[in-house]
């Protein structure tokens, strides 16, 4: 709690850019973390992900993605239930059941073939569904783009993450690194395209994140923002 207070104080201290974007009052802090994250990505995350993609065959990477995706489905279901979406929640649990059994601990996504679609939910989206606005944009160390609402959501996501229960600690850490590598490898194309498309990568990435999260809260059916 004291850490949180200190963090908020720090954020407030950084919020002093004159002509800043109203959605990004912590831009000073954010740009600092952004720089750190870019560095981290340049020297560690991206090279590791590229090596992984070069040396691990696609078939095996699909199995790894499915395995971790399956472990995430129960809490995706919990979030769907918390958002009052009963059938989606049940679908997520059915996915977990079929993929864990017939799909051999989740490495095969048989549920999709059976017609149970994979969903994208987390606690940040649940808060959004309950009416919480995004709050100021916030870049988290390593994890990247977020906002105050989704940051709190991410804290809960991490708390609920079944990976936290894995013992011994070494095994847990290895699994977390493997999952992170898989996630980064899946983003290699997208991050290269972002690099090409953006004039100012910080701004482009921020706006894309905010649009993306808004869309996810509405499950892709967000009311259109009218252009003038």
């Amino acid at each position: 709690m004291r850490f949180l207070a200190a963090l908020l104080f720090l954020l407030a201290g950084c919020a002093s850019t004159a002509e800043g974007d109203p959605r990004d009052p912590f831009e000073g802090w954010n740009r600092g973390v952004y720089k750190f994250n870019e560095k981290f990505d340049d020297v560690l995350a991206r090279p590791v992900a590229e090596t992984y993609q070069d040396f691990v065959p696609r078939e095996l990477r699909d199995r790894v993605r499915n395995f971790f995706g399956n472990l995430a489905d129960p809490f995706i279901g919990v979030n769907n239930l918390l958002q009052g979406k009963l059938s989606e929640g049940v679908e997520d649990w059915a996915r977990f059941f079929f993929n864990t059994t017939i799909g051999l601990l989740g490495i095969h996504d048989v549920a999709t073939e059976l017609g149970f679609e994979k969903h994208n939910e987390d606690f940040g989206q649940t808060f959004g569904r309950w009416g919480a606005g995004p709050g100021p944009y916030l870049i988290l160390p390593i994890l990247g783009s977020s906002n105050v609402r989704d940051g709190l959501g991410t804290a809960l996501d991490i708390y609920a993450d079944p990976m936290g229960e894995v013992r011994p600690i070494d095994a847990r850490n290895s699994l977390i690194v493997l999952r992170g590598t898989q996630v980064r490898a899946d983003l290699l194309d997208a991050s290269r395209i972002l690099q090409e498309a953006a004039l100012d990568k910080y701004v482009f990435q921020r706006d894309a994140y905010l649009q993306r999260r808004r869309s996810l809260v509405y499950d892709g059916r967000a009311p259109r923002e009218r252009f003038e």
Partner: protein
Amino acid sequence: MNRAAPALLALSGLLLPLPAQSADVAPDALVKTVTLEVVALIARDKEIKAGNRAKLISLIDAKVLPHFNFEAMTQLAMGQSWRKAAPEQKRRLVGEFKTLLVRTYASALAAYSDQKFDFRPLRARPNDTDVTVQVRVLQQGAQPVPIDYSMEKTPAGWKVYDVMVGGVSLVANYRTEFNNVVRDSGVEGLIKSLDSKNRSLEAAGAAKK
């Protein structure tokens, strides 16, 4: 004759403008035909598969560009700043933005063309002139990525004026960037900054070959 026939056939295929009567083609049918055709052409082309970006861009120029309204896209991306531009500047802005978008589109196609597509049925009334055509890119073990084409009916057929990928509007995403540059260095500054972006991408592309 027999041996020349296939070559002639292929040649005539190249010369035919894609949907000759595109004014009558329904928007969802148009998206589906063009997408599948382009994906098939990429799959067959060894040079594009090997990373020949120039060839991919000329394919996009021929097959995809006629169905986009770049002036509308530029105008929407500029927002308030569009009015500050002189007609001559508008022309250059549209040209530069088009180059950037085509390049981005080419990268996206190169990366995702071997995925499976799910073309959603169009939900629109018969006399609607502004519709959203929905396509979903299916991927292993992850939620499908929705691609929504915002399309407007014009005398020359349906034209795309925005693309939303995973809920992110491409046009809206440039809005803040464009306005920031215009605020700091004017419309001329934005043209310069787009131009140098395009040049650096071209140089990077050439260096790779």
